[in-house]
């Protein structure tokens, strides 16, 4: 048994708090991949501004590269609680995609790990408290790239 699997088991035990669930996960083959879930990046997700978030993600100076990242967001979001975001990149060997909203209380919305064999594209939906820049951060071949687009929010996503 590899170290990684062992760590994965320990984590599952911690979060599920029961051997029954563990057995269930085991039988579903979730623990057999040899890859434990990466630890949830608390520092990055509790970052209150863009610089903090980028630091916590280990980004030094991302290159602005609008040509190789397509960030698809609505120009105007009537409902800030559900804003569709698609990030897709033509760069080879995309390893990581992050979505950030610069004026949200917690700027980092999501961080995706893209294994080999998975395309460098992901779609999700984010909350936006007010008009802000949505930033897509892509890590490919060890280098970070960034592109940002403004979304005008007419009704905030935080009950406002």
């Amino acid at each position: 048994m590899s170290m990684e699997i062992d760590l994965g088991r320990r984590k599952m035990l911690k979060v599920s708090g029961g051997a029954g669930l563990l057995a269930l996960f085991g039988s579903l083959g979730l623990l057999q991949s040899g890859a434990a879930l990466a630890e949830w990046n608390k520092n990055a997700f509790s970052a209150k501004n863009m610089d903090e978030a980028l630091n916590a993600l280990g980004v030094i100076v991302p290159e602005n590269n609008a040509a190789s990242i397509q960030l698809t967001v609505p120009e105007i979001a009537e409902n800030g609680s559900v804003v569709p975001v698609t990030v897709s990149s033509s760069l080879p060997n995309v390893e990581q995609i992050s979505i950030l909203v610069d004026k949200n209380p917690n700027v980092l919305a999501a961080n995706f790990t893209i294994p080999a064999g998975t395309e460098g594209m992901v779609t999700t939906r984010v909350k936006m408290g007010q008009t802000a820049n949505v930033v897509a951060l892509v890590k490919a071949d060890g280098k970070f790239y960034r592109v940002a687009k403004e979304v005008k929010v007419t009704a905030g996503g935080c009950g406002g």
Partner: protein
Amino acid sequence: MGKPMKIRAAVKDGVTEVKILMQHEMETGLRKEADGTLVPAWFITEVKAQYQGRTVLEAQFGQSISKNPYLLFHFKGGAAGEKVTVSWVDNKGDTRTDEVAIAA
């Protein structure tokens, strides 16, 4: 145990498209009830999708992801009838795992 996910997976030209709709409140921890009490943070932190034991996507979520999170992604490979398994964990330690057969 969390509420069931809706998962669709379909293969076309050697690429499998996966769409996931999770059922979760995704409370930010910043919202107040009418009486002014703060609703505690409650949100999915990690999502993992696997195809035949191979991880095809790992996601970490923060509070800014919308209620009932949606994900769409593509991975190479996949054949009709094979299974895609998705599981999530939230900040309270609750989990949910669902699987779906890939459609042609």
